[in-house]
């Protein structure tokens, strides 16, 4: 019993430490992203653009492909049920609503977490092991300014941008299988889709994806700075980074769903 309480206490303390660490990181990053540039201390725009290309543009092929296939699949699955009622035209509504509200933001975030969240942790962790972070500090360059701030801006813009495209592609995927396989009239599908899309769904999807981007980047950076003890340390934190990021993405998703649709 005492052992259990002790374990629980230590676990709680560790989590508290993590929360504190992340909070400090958030404050510092926001400072280097907003206050510092105004005070003339600079922001690495070029690095932010390069990272936007890496996180956003380079993620498009895989995100596009997967979202297209998911669109195709949802339409086919939906038809299985809707066909019995002769309601195949409502496939369009189902695809549009689930793409905008849930699936496009979620799939995009999870894929980018896998592709880039791990890369962020590995990059920063390796730099820490090689004393490159210490070298930056000694040169008077704050590692958060040099590494975290440009990445956060890039991620916070890249994830929503890719998400919009993913929404579109998913709807196209649904259109393709509905029209070619199920046999819905193309114009009807289009009309149903435009009828089903409401502004709120689009906005909530975008807001969520913005926060997904922040989560991916902050978890990646935090885990990278935490690396300790050589190459295994980098490996350990990199794996943990992806798992934790995906878990937090789902939690954030749940929170926003409740906030937007149940309050």
């Amino acid at each position: 019993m005492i052992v259990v309480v002790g374990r629980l206490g230590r676990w709680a303390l560790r989590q508290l430490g993590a929360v504190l660490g992340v909070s400090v990181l958030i404050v510092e990053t926001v400072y280097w992203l907003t206050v510092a540039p105004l005070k003339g201390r600079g922001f690495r725009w070029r690095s932010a653009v390069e990272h936007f290309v890496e996180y956003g543009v380079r993620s498009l092929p895989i995100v596009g492909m997967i979202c297209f296939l998911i669109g195709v699949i949802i339409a086919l699955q939906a038809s299985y049920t809707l066909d019995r009622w002769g309601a195949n035209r409502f496939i369009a509504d189902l695809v549009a609503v689930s793409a905008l509200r849930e699936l496009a933001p979620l799939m995009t975030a999870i894929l980018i977490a896998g592709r880039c969240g791990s890369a962020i942790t590995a990059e920063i962790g390796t730099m820490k092991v090689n004393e490159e972070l210490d070298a930056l500090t000694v040169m008077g360059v704050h590692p958060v300014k040099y590494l975290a701030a440009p990445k956060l801006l890039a991620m916070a813009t890249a994830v929503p941008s890719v998400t919009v495209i993913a929404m579109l592609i998913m709807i196209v995927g649904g259109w393709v299988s509905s029209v070619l396989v199920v046999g819905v009239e193309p114009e009807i599908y289009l009309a149903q889709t435009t009828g089903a899309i409401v502004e709120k769904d689009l906005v909530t999807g975008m807001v969520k994806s913005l926060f997904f981007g922040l989560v991916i980047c902050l978890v990646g950076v935090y885990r990278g700075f935490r690396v300790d003890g050589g190459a295994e340390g980098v490996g350990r934190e990199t794996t943990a980074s992806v798992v934790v990021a995906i878990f937090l993405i789902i939690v954030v998703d749940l929170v926003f769903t409740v906030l937007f649709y149940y309050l």
Partner: protein
Amino acid sequence: MKEDRHAIEVEDLVVAYGDKVVLDRVSFSVRPGEIFVILGGSGSGKTTLLRTLVGLMRPRSGRIAIHGQNLTAMSDEQQMEIRRKIGMCFQGAALLGSLSVADNVALPLREHTRLEESTIDIMTRIKLELVGLGGAGELLPSELSGGMRKRAGIARAMAMDPEIIFYDEPSAGLDPIVAAGIDELIRNLRSTFSLTSVVVTHEMESVRLIADRVCMLHRGRVAGIGTLAELEGSDDPYIRDFLTRRPAESDADETEWARSLTAVD
């Protein structure tokens, strides 16, 4: 004035990792323009001392003054200012792996100055020539040999024309000829720029070549300070054993000390 006489002053410095006191009441001062060598065996706290001097670690107590300004009483912000006047060469060079050698050297200039890109280019090339890496600017750190990497690290430390430069084991792990080349570079930089140089090492060969004065660390304490000749005349048995490269008479003691530092409680 006091600050004219000393580039660095360290007084009663105590540094600890958790409960483990690694540096115990260390005091010394470094004169402007001299090569000050910190000598000591493995685990004697040399790296820890250097990291504390450049502000990477906070001491538990004691005072560090750089050009008379008290580093330990400063905010992070003020420390960042001081850091522009110092350069540090890390043991593993710590070049940013994603940048070319030239970009590594240019990094402090790009971050701290508003110079034109063409000016930065020229300054970078000058620094690389200075350390004998004139043609290697376009290479990535991973494409360099160990000695070249050390030289690139020195070029980067020199980028902002520092007044003080710190070297952590500059010639460790290099073959004797390359190591001697680095020692010569350290001397040349000092005589050209009257650069105050603090060198951490455990290699007697390089101490003989470069040191103006030596500070001998033993178990986190200063065992002796002075010119090499003065230390060689010391009657401290540890200093004499170290300088003449004799196995310590009290080997059991050393293991005991190492264990006390690494003990997990």
